[in-house]
């Protein structure tokens, strides 16, 4: 062989050098951390749409509930009390439910050092109501009086459960007057990660789309200070990557473990898997403007074709239950007596035949970024095909799906799959109203369904819920029965919240009333 300049010894040298480089890199020590005792590292998919607590209406609630405080926190169902005091320590309502008085906590301050007082509460809630977005929760509010620095009186135009409204995830935070003034002057005030809260943590660093660092607020009113003074949060949209970060020890906790990976954690003794009820509910809107879907019999037929058991199994990976309408189990005004559709192919075919429908072809849209929808929507197509209805499935980004549905309802999709959750823990005011109450211009009622009886029941129930919750429940239940009979939507499943928790830490339980939130002040080392 002519080309013999590479001797075996030089080859061995090359292998040795390469191995040394690889092992050298592998043995690089990770620096020991002086912060280790006070630093808690988290990976989450929670994006920040806005840092403005009034505009906030999305996944940034994950951070917001640590930075801002409402007047009250709503406890999970199992708790002894319905509410925990936050910035208000006591509260009461008049007999007619139209006047609510809140006594504020003494010594609470905002992160800028100014006191939390009645004027700040009034300014915050009036701003929230004026701005829109989640401000609709304050619809019953007429005026706010501040008879003293620590007393706030809410005067309502109709009775409403103001304790529930004041504990909302969105639109109910109390904000520093300085921050309110700053954002009035400069709409981009919050964009760099400034805050005007009074919560146990304040934002100390924010890299958009990449990381958030929260630091404990030393002057927070709580007697027990957070065990971790620094919470370093890596924004990690991909669940598998977050999982790798947690199992390799790069972060202490990952909040977005994919459902498909949960099984592997059940057999790992370093972690425990906790399953809770969540406010997330999957619905499919039928386009009731178009024939033959404008016929309730056809919608019923399609509802009877669905294999709900398989959809729960595939979409929710078993961590779900078949829905009873658009109100998720665990959220008011859920009613376990509302009937459910089940797969009855013969009945479905017979209903379809009675409506004279043949060769029906439907267009189904779903949000492609939602992996659960991507898993279960093909089962809807299969179910429809089993009764002779063909379907064209389109997975598109939610923004596109929604924009197309609102633009031209008469020529839009036939079935729109959506994951929905209430703004605060009242699915009567939100889910039942937003999803199916008639409106002149479609916003979230994308079945475009109009039913005067249903509208009246919902409107009456909303007005009654502040003074007679049981009476309101009856009206809501009647309305939900109409939704079952008229079937403007497919009621698919209520998703469970599955948390994979490292046993090394004690992490506060999931609270269904704050579905995107993690309360870091309660995180502790287990031993």
């Amino acid at each position, binding site marked *: 062989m*002519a*080309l*013999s*300049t*590479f001797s075996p010894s030089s080859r061995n040298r090359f292998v040795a050098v390469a191995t040394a480089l690889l092992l050298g*890199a*592998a043995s*690089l020590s*990770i*620096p*020991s*951390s*002086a*912060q280790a005792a006070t*630093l808690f*590292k988290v*990976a989450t998919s929670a*994006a*920040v*749409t*806005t840092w403005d607590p009034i*505009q*906030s*209406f*999305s996944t940034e609630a994950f951070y917001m509930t640590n930075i801002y405080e409402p007047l009250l926190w709503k406890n999970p169902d199992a708790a002894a009390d319905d509410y925990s005091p936050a910035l208000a320590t006591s509260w009461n309502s008049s007999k007619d439910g139209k006047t609510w008085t809140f006594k504020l906590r003494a010594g609470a301050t905002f992160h800028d050092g100014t006191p939390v007082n009645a004027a700040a509460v009034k300014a915050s809630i009036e701003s929230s109501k004026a*701005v*829109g*977005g*989640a401000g*609709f929760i304050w619809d019953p509010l007429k005026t706010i009086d501040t008879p003293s620095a620590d007393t706030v009186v809410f005067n309502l135009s109709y009775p409403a459960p103001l304790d529930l409204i004041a504990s909302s995830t969105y639109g109910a935070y109390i904000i520093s007057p300085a921050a309110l003034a700053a954002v009035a002057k400069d709409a*981009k005030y919050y*964009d*760099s990660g400034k805050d005007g809260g009074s919560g146990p943590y304040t934002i100390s660093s924010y890299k*958009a*789309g*990449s990381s958030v660092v929260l630091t404990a607020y030393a002057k927070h009113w709580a007697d027990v200070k957070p065990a971790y003074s*620094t919470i*370093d949060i*890596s924004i*990690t*949209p*991909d669940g*598998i*990557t977050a999982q*790798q*970060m947690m*199992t*390799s020890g*790069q*972060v202490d906790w990952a909040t977005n473990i994919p459902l498909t990976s949960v099984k592997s954690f059940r057999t790992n003794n370093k972690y425990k898997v906790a399953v809770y009820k969540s406010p997330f509910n999957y619905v499919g809107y039928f386009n009731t403007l178009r024939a033959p879907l404008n016929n309730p019999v056809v919608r019923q037929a399609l509802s009877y074709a669905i294999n709900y058991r398989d959809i729960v199994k595939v979409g929710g990976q078993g961590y779900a239950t078949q829905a009873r309408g658009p109100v998720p189990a665990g959220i008011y005004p859920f009613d376990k007596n509302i009937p459910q559709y089940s797969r009855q192919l013969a009945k479905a075919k017979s209903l379809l035949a009675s409506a004279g429908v043949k060769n029906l072809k439907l267009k189904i849209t779903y949000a492609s*970024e939602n992996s659960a929808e991507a898993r279960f929507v093909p089962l809807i197509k299969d179910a429809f095909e089993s009764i002779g209805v063909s379907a064209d499935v389109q997975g598109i*980004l*939610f*923004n*596109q799906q*929604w*924009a*197309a549905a609102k633009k031209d309802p008469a020529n839009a999709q036939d079935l729109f799959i959506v994951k929905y959750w209430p*703004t605060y823990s009242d699915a009567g005011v939100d889910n039942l109203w937003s999803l199916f109450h008639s409106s002149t211009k479609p*916003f979230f009622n994308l079945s475009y369904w109009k039913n005067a009886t249903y509208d009246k029941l919902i409107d009456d129930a909303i007005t009654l819920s502040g003074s007679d919750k049981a009476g309101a429940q009856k009206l809501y239940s009647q309305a939900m029965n109409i939704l079952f009979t008229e079937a403007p939507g497919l009621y698919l499943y209520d998703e469970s919240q599955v948390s994979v928790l490292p046993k090394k830490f004690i992490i506060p339980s999931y609270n269904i009333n704050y579905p995107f939130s993690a309360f870091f002040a309660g995180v502790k080392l287990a031993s």
Partner: protein
Amino acid sequence: MRILWKRLSSALLVLIGASFITFTLARVIPSDPALAYIGPKATAADAERLRVTLGLDQPIPIQYFKYLGQTFHGNWGYSLSTKQSVLKEITDRLPATLELIFFAIGFAIIFGVTLGVLAAKYRGRFQDSLIRIISIAGVSMPAFWFGLLLQLLFAGRLGWFPATGEFDIEVKYDNPIHKVTGFPILDSLITGNFSAATNGLHHMVLPALTLSAYSFGLLSRMARANMLEVLSQDHIKVSRAYGLSERIIFFKLALRNALPPIVTVTGLSIAYLITGTFFVEQVYNWPGIGSFAVNSLISIDYPAIMGITLLAAIGYLVTNFIVDLIQAKLDPRVGMR
């Protein structure tokens, strides 16, 4: 000078063309940028107000010309999802991506060309087959899949390398990096922060290997083919007849002559790596342009998409220009035509 002027004008046309196509596509797909900005549960009135503020109520051609004018004045708009200036987002994230590309192309050149030359030397033997298998695997394996495999093996099973990120989170508290050039590993070295530098290099290994896989395979096959072609040429035979040593023939004569096409492919590879980072940064949670691009695409953040497209187009043009200069230097027959 005339050639340079000509190249610059054609580059400008390419940039305008790329911006026009991206702008039009971003606007004709059914989506609502205003709702992407304020969130899906905002009221219709809020969304309408924002549409006017962002100029989305104006005809598309007017929006485009406004965008073009602002871009030339350094205003690349504001990202709908992060609410930050697109130019700032890009300049903040670019150093992390460029460092990743630097190490990836470094891996690809060193190992790709070396193995390609070795394959030529051992043509038809076991070593040649082994290198062929590795090279083809590099070219054909999707980056996101290869990245996940490396993560599972070297981070998950063996624990040799960190699974994700540019540095350990502790680095920013224990050994914070002081900004000099903006390139984090380089800055750690310049400022003598060797703990951060070694940690950064440790984090770099898996993403750089993943990103380099395609270029490595390509360069390896290219180097082998070119070396074999050059080695079969008459002037090599004559050199052998004159008794020149194999080392001189191999490295001084053959490799030098085989280099120009390899330089071209390297240039194209760098351009490929710019878009290759989209997948790799997502898998490794790398805080660079690639992950920003993916998140922008998912949220239909059209100002960010426009900015990234322009950046990628500029990257391609600059890389190709530099490759042309190097080629002209290596091979005088290749002029700046």
